[in-house]
């Protein structure tokens, strides 16, 4: 990417926190990169001259981050893009994996619950990361918070499944053709949104979360082995694509 600068652990932490803070405040990506690069250079030169990080950013990193953030423009288009990607992503994963297992059938509670959980998750992720970036150090607290955020949708979806069994709400059943039509519409949405957002991420993640399980199901492996293998393939695949995709997309944009 670029030549590495010599930075102390403290400065590196601050730079990372600033990046997360500005990103979760919805600031423009190129502006974030701009200020982060400038500060990295400043911090590294200051450190070479024996100055402390306090001399650069003052006593409160949080106040400094706010000061920088106030001068930057909010990128509503990108925000909207991310939110659409997450909502449609979560829906398409659910619909495709249900479709591969058989016909679709959803209760009203399931549909509404799914939307609420997704929106809640997005809010918590952005607020949570913004908060984490401002608290000083304490890796334990950070870890607990991130773990909590990651666990939240899982717990909520489990709760929803339970509620759905206890409370009866009108349910829509789709026959073969209906299921295929819904699947087709979802596919069109996924492709459409990916073209609009100019990213492969949604398609790749949907495929990684649904296809391994389906194909492993066709093999004669034991159920547990299938399950573990599909999870490993999904998450390793997602990790790799998060690493590779931004690079590929940056290249094609330039």
């Amino acid at each position, binding site marked *: 990417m*670029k*030549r590495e*600068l010599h930075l102390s652990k403290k400065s590196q932490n601050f730079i990372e926190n600033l990046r997360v803070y500005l990103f979760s405040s919805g600031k423009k990506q190129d*502006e974030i990169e*701009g*200020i982060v*690069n*400038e*500060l*990295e*250079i*400043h911090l*590294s*030169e*200051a450190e070479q001259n024996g*100055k402390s990080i*306090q*001399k*650069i*950013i*003052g006593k409160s990193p949080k106040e*400094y981050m706010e*000061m*920088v953030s*106030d*001068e*930057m423009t909010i990128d509503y288009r990108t925000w909207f893009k991310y939110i659409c990607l997450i909502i449609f992503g979560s829906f398409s994963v659910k619909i495709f994996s249900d479709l591969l297992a058989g016909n679709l059938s959803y209760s009203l509670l399931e549909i509404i619950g799914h939307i609420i959980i997704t929106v809640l998750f997005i809010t918590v992720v952005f607020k949570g990361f913004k908060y984490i970036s401002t608290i000083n150090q304490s890796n334990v607290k950070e870890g607990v918070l991130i773990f909590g955020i990651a666990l939240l949708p899982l717990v909520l979806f489990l709760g929803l499944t339970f509620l759905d069994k206890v409370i009866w709400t009108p349910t829509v059943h789709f026959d073969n053709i209906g299921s295929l039509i819904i699947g087709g519409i979802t596919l069109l949405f996924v492709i459409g949104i990916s073209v609009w957002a100019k990213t492969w991420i949604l398609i790749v993640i949907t495929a990684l979360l649904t296809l391994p399980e389906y194909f492993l199901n066709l093999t004669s492996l034991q159920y547990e082995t299938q399950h573990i293998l599909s999870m490993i393939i999904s998450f390793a695949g997602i990790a790799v694509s998060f690493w590779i995709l931004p690079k590929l997309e940056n290249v094609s944009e330039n």
Partner: protein
Amino acid sequence: MSTTQMLKGIIDGCLLAIIKDKEVYGYEMAEKLESYGFHSFSEGTIYPLLMRMQKEELITATLKKSTAGPRRKYYSLTPKGDLELKKFIERWQNLQSNVNGVIQQYTITNGGNQDET
């Protein structure tokens, strides 16, 4: 009132003057300010100011290669920034003579020298 609070609005003008003198990057600017005696401010505060001045089209920035590491962002003055600097100097001289007038009156009536801190 702390020095930091007093400096608000003044640093902007000083930065314009430094940039007018010569194309500079952030760290150089902070060093210059320090060499003139501004010790108490946090160096990083210049960046939000630079961002604002860039949006107001008082300054422009270009990335230039450096021998030691990644590319630095160098700032230069726009014609609009040049005008703003002139206005700042005018405002400052006006302010300075007003404040000096008040202080002189104060020291005369109190019959002693006030230390500059």
